[in-house]
């Protein structure tokens, strides 16, 4: 596809930052091609979490002693870093959650169930991960709203641009759309979707699980209303993620979880609630996770998001180029990589994805096999599952070469 160009990342240097990459799997060099499921973690993130546990280990908020104060400052700084990462207008627009899934559920409960009326429309797509579809099915059930889908291009290479606008109706109240498909890496035209939505008074929620920290994201430039993402997919710890929300919307919503830290005053029979962002953060948060997440924001920005995106595209182009010569591989997603991130989904002849995955495993290659939490998209493709290789900043050509060597082994066994 693209001519060999110098990679802007010093990948081999970067790789030394990730402890797992020095390990062997099944006795082979590890080719970690499952970053779409979760990314590996750089040392600096693990150090940040460890420093909190070993040096402070205190709860935040209302602590009157030094260690609690310092933990509070680190926690607040993490929020500021997350806000900076996506260019939120204010740190209080960043709510810490467990991850993308909880973030979307929060909007489902606190915005969806409050504001949607019978006959209102939720516009989504078959590219969605289950988190961004099942939530809305349930909101629809609870409110009487209706789920609508953007029409797709043939072979699900993308949303049909010709039918983007007609997918909206005057009853469209929210668009719940992925920023990047976790199956094909397809990236919908978010800016245009937000424009169409806002012209009609609808809000836009973007599932950014695959997008955040694989490319620069600017919520103000995109003009989107909600963005959900998970730290664990962007070099951060497990158990923490973000819901970005436009301040006016977050203000209008009801709280989601109730309890300590999100209240202002509590009587026996009633309570008043705190300001943003505390309003949406009941209970002791994942303090270590937030601090590690802050370190992850620093790390990915230090590496450079433009460079990461270019690197992944380069790898995808390389994959597609290696595939083109063969007739035993079916690739999902368009071959134009302008609107695709670093995800390569395929099937190998008629061999089941689990068999492919398992043989790759025995060659040290870690891929995901199955329906990738995207059963509706599998139905569009007419398959039970695919094998998926997904990339990140530390992925290199040897990983891809190992994948294709592994596929040769599959061929030998099955064909």
């Amino acid at each position, binding site marked *: 596809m693209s001519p060999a160009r110098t990679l802007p990342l010093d990948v081999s240097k970067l790789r030394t930052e990730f402890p797992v990459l020095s390990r062997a799997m*099944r*006795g082979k060099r590890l080719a970690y091609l499952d970053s779409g499921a979760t990314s590996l973690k750089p040392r600096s993130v693990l150090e940040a979490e460890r420093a909190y546990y070993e040096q402070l280990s205190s709860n935040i908020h209302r602590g009157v002693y030094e260690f609690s104060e310092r933990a509070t400052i680190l926690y607040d700084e993490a929020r500021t870093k997350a806000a900076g990462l996506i260019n939120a207008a204010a740190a209080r627009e960043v709510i810490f959650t467990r991850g993308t899934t909880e973030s979307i559920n929060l909007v489902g409960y606190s915005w969806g169930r409050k504001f949607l009326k019978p006959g209102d429309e939720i516009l989504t797509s078959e590219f969605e991960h289950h988190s961004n579809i099942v939530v809305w099915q349930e909101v629809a059930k609870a409110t009487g709203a209706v789920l609508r889908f953007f029409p797709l291009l043939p072979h699900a290479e993308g949303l049909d641009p010709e039918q983007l606008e007609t997918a909206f109706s005057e009853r469209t109240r929210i668009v719940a759309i992925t920023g990047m498909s976790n199956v094909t890496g397809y990236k919908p035209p978010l800016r245009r979707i937000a424009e169409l939505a806002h012209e009609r008074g609808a809000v836009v929620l973007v599932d950014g699980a695959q997008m955040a920290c694989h490319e620069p994201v600017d919520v103000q430039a995109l003009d989107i209303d909600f963005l959900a993402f998970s730290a664990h997919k962007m070099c951060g710890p497990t158990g923490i993620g973000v819901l970005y929300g436009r301040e006016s919307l977050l203000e209008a919503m009801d709280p989601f979880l109730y309890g300590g830290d999100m209240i202002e005053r509590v009587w026996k029979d009633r309570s008043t609630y705190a300001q943003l962002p505390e309003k949406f953060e009941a209970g002791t948060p994942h303090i270590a996770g937030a601090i590690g997440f802050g370190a992850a924001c620093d790390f990915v920005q230090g590496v450079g998001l433009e460079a990461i995106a270019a690197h992944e595209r380069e790898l995808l182009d390389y994959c597609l180029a290696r595939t083109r010569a063969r007739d035993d591989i079916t690739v999902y997603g368009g071959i134009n990589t302008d609107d695709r991130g670093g995800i390569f989904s395929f099937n190998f002849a008629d*061999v*089941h*994805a*689990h*068999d492919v995955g*398992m*043989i790759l*495993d*025995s*060659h040290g290659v870690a891929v995901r096999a*199955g*329906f990738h939490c995207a059963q509706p998209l599998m139905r569009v493709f007419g398959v*039970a*599952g695919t094998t998926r290789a997904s990339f990140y900043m530390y992925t290199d050509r040897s990983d891809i070469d190992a994948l294709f060597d592994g596929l040769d*082994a599959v061929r030998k*066994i*099955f064909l």
Partner: protein
Amino acid sequence: MNLGDDLYKEIILDNYKAKKYRRRMDDADISREGANPSCGDDIELFVRLNGDRIEEVTYDGAGCSICLASANMLCTALTGRTLGEARALFDQVRSMLTDADVPDFPEYAADLEAMQGVKAFPVRVKCAMLAWSTLKQVVDEHSLSAG
């Protein structure tokens, strides 16, 4: 050859590729679907009985090689066997895939030994068990309704 490749022994691949028992049965006495939603294996088992004896058993559906090879082995072994024998074989397969020992299979089911390598791959045990668990439900239900 290594651990993973090794699992794909001739016997498993032969059973996977064999289509002898892979078909729907119109005059089945009992049919039952079984699925591992988490990995997408999805099969249907068809059984024709003659009293207590399995006259014919077939399967259809989609799944990985382990799942379909296991279903094929099931049909090969149990055609013409009694429900009691089916139940006993289910117990043996389960214990092979979850416990330490490889059981002493009856001769008509000797191929099943080829499945023992699956035990080393916990996520695949469900695949190997699917046809058997489905059969177990068929047998249990039949005994209930018959009994």
